[in-house]
């Protein structure tokens, strides 16, 4: 379809709507409905109909609820993100907030509050205030939600209008509406009392509100053991709730409350076991996957938990392979003396599975269990069976046979006497195998063994490898962290969120997103918490003395939080229990930032922006191929190319808006590279003023595409680790986009900043240093 056609259609719609707007002729309403439907359907298929905005509002202003509802849908799509259009709707929506129909009042208020434009806030407060006092509970709940939305756009106006007080009164009438607000904003009044009191009211909330409240309770640190038990007793029935989100949130509460009570903690495992199993067996595979991931984590923590219930993890033929893989891992983890025979029998069954990857996985799993040396004879028999079974076949499944051979020989190294005959059979079968790969590998093993068992073992099964094979690949630190993130996506993804979430993104969305977790109005408590978490992410970067600093900060702030009279328990909880690091990864670098910065692709400083002919373009493609692919070493060996290309003038460096470098890689690079340059820069006094905590500088630098990996310190000394990446050159994609790393000390007393710069590509370091220096100099001036 061509654009003209569509444009013509839109024009026609526009004039039709305009004609109808004032019409009171019979049938006009029906016509309007048809037109509105058409507009909505265009919107649905993704056609931009925002041009009809004023006509839509004109038509809807005196219309019935049917039209209004459709109009709100329309507004929701366009006005919320477009400040100019939003301004047009204010009048219309404000009027509808006075409508006699509560449905219209509620919907209008919801639409109004969804216009996330900070400078329109003054128009919202009146209708929200009114809504909170509305006779109809529907409107009141929308209004409470509105307070929450308002809080994220402008916390000050929530305070000014004393919405908290009004809400406090509301809590008696509308537990749901109130709690939504509570959960998100963590209002600082003491309405909640203690977490146990809140927990007792749990049943009054809707299932979704319960999830939010449970999330809050999980962050609470009870004053004494009795309180812990009180809360657990009250919440126990949530474990049998029909909503799986409630069940998992409850499990999280239990795990966290008992973290420091080892024996009770173990009982909690036992208690939450059956609800979780119920979820995997009765839910859809999508649900089962998420729950299995959590179980997997629990089992890694406590392998004995399911020793007698291993059958729950048997694969169903109909399970999707990602669920099967997870189940195989779990089965491997829970195998011990008592169940190895059954588990291996079941796994052997899967080895004939039609699904070759799963068949491979299961043989590997048998191998891994074998290495644990339970019931070794049984397993050897089973492996032999595989062989006998497989040797008859000539075609497919070579991979499986390769796996088998390797498993056999590894077993032989573990237990030579029992396995000798089996290995003999395996090698014989392998050598006679018609498939080249299998034949070759068997022959290789055979010849290696001829050279001597010790030598063969060195080659085939070096010690390290064997360990890596069955010990869980995750370090216990990471496991613990994931555990803290129970009931989060991180568990499913099996990586703590800081490892795969772009921090820049986190920072931005935190401040932009309406529902961000951050408590804007209590920076002291929260920031302390943040530092702590940043450091624990990165403390390998810091020397011992700096760690000391951090500890001071966190305890200092923790104490602040304790003594601050207005902070509620739920607020204090995360700060006090900072060892739990509950929200840490999600809130890293969550300093407020102007909306939409991360969408800006261009650096703020126009003078350093020469987009296309970047320095790398001058490098001939052939020469650039000589750069080692592994950019870890490119910094060391790069001179070849650097020499070939003329030293690039500094202003041609463009930094990538979203470099990807995780803490580990940073540390590695930092260790490998040598200091290319040092910079020293005086900071503007306005900048220094902002530096009560390290964060403002991080935020400032992000705008210049320089990102903070870690920061910390106490006034007047702050320390930062920054990184940046040169924009990959699209004309010459083979060129490596090099990283720049900076260690920066800021002395606020002297208003000086001094830093060491390291670079993958040393030739670009001066250009980067210049960028960095200017960025520093600008801090506080913009």
């Amino acid at each position, binding site marked *: 379809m061509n654009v003209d056609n569509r444009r013509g259609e839109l024009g026609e719609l526009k004039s039709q709507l305009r004609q109808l707007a004032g019409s009171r002729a019979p049938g006009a309403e029906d016509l309007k409905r048809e037109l509105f439907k058409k507009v909505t359907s265009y919107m649905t298929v993704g056609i931009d109909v925002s041009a009809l905005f004023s006509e839509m509002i004109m038509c809807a202003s005196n219309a019935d609820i049917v039209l209004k509802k459709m109009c709100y849908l329309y507004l929701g799509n366009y006005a919320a993100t477009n400040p100019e259009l939003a301004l047009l709707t204010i009048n219309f929506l404000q009027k509808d907030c006075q409508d006699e129909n509560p449905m219209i009042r509620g919907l209008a208020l919801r639409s109004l509050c969804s216009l996330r434009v900070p400078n329109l806030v003054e128009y919202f407060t009146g209708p929200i205030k009114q809504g909170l006092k509305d006779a109809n509970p529907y409107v009141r709940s929308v209004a409470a939600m509105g307070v929450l939305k308002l809080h994220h756009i402008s916390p000050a106006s929530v305070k000014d209008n004393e919405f908290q007080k009004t809400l406090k009164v509301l809590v008696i009438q509308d537990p749901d509406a109130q709690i939504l607000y509570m959960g998100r904003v963590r209002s600082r009044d003491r309405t909640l009392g203690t977490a146990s009191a809140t927990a007792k009211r749990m049943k009054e909330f809707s299932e979704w509100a319960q999830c939010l409240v449970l999330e809050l309770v999980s962050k609470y640190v009870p004053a004494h053991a009795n309180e812990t038990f009180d809360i657990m007793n009250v919440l126990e029935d949530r474990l049998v709730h*029909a909503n799986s989100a409630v069940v998992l949130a409850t499990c999280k509460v239990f795990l966290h409350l008992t973290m420091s009570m080892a024996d009770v903690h173990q009982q909690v495992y036992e208690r939450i076991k059956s609800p979780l199993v*119920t979820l995997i067996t009765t839910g859809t595979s999508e649900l089962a996957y998420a729950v299995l991931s959590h179980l997997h984590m629990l089992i890694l923590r406590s392998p004995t938990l399911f020793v007698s219930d291993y059958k729950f993890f048997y694969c169903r033929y109909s399970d999707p392979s*990602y669920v099967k893989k997870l189940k195989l891992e779990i089965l491997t983890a829970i195998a011990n003396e008592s169940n190895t025979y059954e588990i291996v029998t079941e796994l052997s069954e899967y080895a004939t599975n*039609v699904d070759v990857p799963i068949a491979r996985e299961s043989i590997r799993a048998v191998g891994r269990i074998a290495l644990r040396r339970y019931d070794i004879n049984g397993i050897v028999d089973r492996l032999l069976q595989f062989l006998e079974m497989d040797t008859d076949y000539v075609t497919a499944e070579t991979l499986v046979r390769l796996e088998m051979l390797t498993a056999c020989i590894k077993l032989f190294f573990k237990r030579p006497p029992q396995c000798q005959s089996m290995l003999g059979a395996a090698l014989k079968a392998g050598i006679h195998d018609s498939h080249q790969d299998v034949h070759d590998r068997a022959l290789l093993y055979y010849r290696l063994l001829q050279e001597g068992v010790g030598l063969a073992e060195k080659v085939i099964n070096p010690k390290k490898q064997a360990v890596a094979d069955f010990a869980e690949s995750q370090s216990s630190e990471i496991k613990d962290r994931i555990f803290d993130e129970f009931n989060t996506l991180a568990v499913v993804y099996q990586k703590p969120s800081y490892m795969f979430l772009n921090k820049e993104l986190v920072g931005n969305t935190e401040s932009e997103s309406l529902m961000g977790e951050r408590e804007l109005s209590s920076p002291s408590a929260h920031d302390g918490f943040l530092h702590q978490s940043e450091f624990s992410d990165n403390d390998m970067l810091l020397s011992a003395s700096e760690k000391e600093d951090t500890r001071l900060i966190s305890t200092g702030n923790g104490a602040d939080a304790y003594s601050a009279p207005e902070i509620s328990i739920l607020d204090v909880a995360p700060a006090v229990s900072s060892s739990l690091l509950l929200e840490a990864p999600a809130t890293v670098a969550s300093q407020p930032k102007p909306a939409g910065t991360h969408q800006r692709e261009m650096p703020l400083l126009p003078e350093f922006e020469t987009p296309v002919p970047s320095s790398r373009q001058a490098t001939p493609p052939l020469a650039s191929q000589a750069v080692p692919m592994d950019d870890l070493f490119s910094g060391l060996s790069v001179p070849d190319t650097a020499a070939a290309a003329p030293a690039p003038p500094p202003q041609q460096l463009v930094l990538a808006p979203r470099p990807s470098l995780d803490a580990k890689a940073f540390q590695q690079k930092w260790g490998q590279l040598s200091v290319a340059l040092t910079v020293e820069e005086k900071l503007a006094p306005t900048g220094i003023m902002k530096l009560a905590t390290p964060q403002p500088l991080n935020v400032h630098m992000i705008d210049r595409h320089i990102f903070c990996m870690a920061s910390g310190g106490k006034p007047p000394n702050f320390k930062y680790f920054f990184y940046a990446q040169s924009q990959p050159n699209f004309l010459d994609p083979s060129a490596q986009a090099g990283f720049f790393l900076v260690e920066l000390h800021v002395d606020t007393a002297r208003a000086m900043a001094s830093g060491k710069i390291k670079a993958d590509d040393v030739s670009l370091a001066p250009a980067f240093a210049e960028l960095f220096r200017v960025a520093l100099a600008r801090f506080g001036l913009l």
Partner: protein
Amino acid sequence: MTIQSIFIMSDLGEVMFEKHYQGKAVDRSICDWYWSELVRAQSHRELPSVMVSPTHYVMHVRREDITFLACAELETSPLLAIEFLNRVADILEEYMGELHEDSLKDNFVIVYQLLDEMMDGGIPLTTESNVLKEMIVPPNLMARMMSVVIGEPPSSVTGVVPPSVASTVPWRAAQVKHVSNEIFLDLVEEMEVSMDREGVLSLCHVYGSIEATSRLSGMPEIIVRFHNPSIIENVRFHPCVRIVNWERDRLLSFLPPDGPFKLMSYRVKNLVNVPVYVKPQTTYQSGEGRLQVTVGIKHDTGKPIENMTVTAPLPNATSSAEVETNHGSAEYRSATRTCLWTIGRIPRDKVPSLTVTFKLMDGVDKPTDRPIMNAGFKIGGTALSGLKIDSIDVLNEDYKPYKGVRAVTTAGCFEIST
């Protein structure tokens, strides 16, 4: 713990609906990313329900041929998202009668209204179908007839705010009235069985649920007593059930929602007897295979076993096959290399058997894979576990309601290795 945007996609990857809950819209290109992942994974079933795109967490649920995507930029509870998407799918299915691309597109105004009421600001809000139906009228047959007869376009919009939206009993309106008052309970049990070719069970579970339909006026209080509640475990209840009473007296006491709902689900504690046996026997000889399957009653429940079916996939190397049976009907579908055997009610006087003779591809003497067979059946009138409901009492109201209990057992996931 919030969801940023929801997308609903058709079977062909077309974005049918998008709804953004947090001001900033997630770009539609996330759907393209999802689709490319799907193409790589080759099948919907092989795509994990939680994924990480370069910009967002993406959680998805697939029902019929419709894909529901939820996107979040920040860490959130995966179960919250998945459970919510399932709820959206349930509600849409209930509204449209079936989840189908066309029915959703035809009723896009309703879909948008539902998405709007079910979530606000990224937090799930009203997901009870009873309550939603009071706010947004389903596009039922009646409305369509009205439009034909009276010529008035049906309106899905009501101006009514249901009293239950913000009440402390979120699942029930205050003023329910019915001419005839009735409550039905359906005991539905499903077996999950894995059996090897010798008939030895490696897995045998029975899962049950009680599906209730309540059409009772006022605010009735219902007490359900079981004859033998001790045989079940791993219970999960609808939010209306007072769990204290279950813990104390093993009875269900609740104020029911109006209409159909799932009262509880459970697992049967002890191993039960498998009512049927399915015995496969495979032999190979010079590039030809022969699969013989016999089916019969293993443990007699006294009720007839009906709708008996056996689905037997043949090895990958099969080139052609012929089927033959002494009972019911059987066919071979070459596209999926699967034999479908429909037995119906299992006869008591003979043993139904199926014989499949199949040719393997050239050069294959004996296939390497052993496909897994599936069986299906239904036993009406009995719950396999033997769970019995003793009584249903309706308190608090004067009327004499009609009460009914039914039971049915189905095969669920019944797998047999060959």
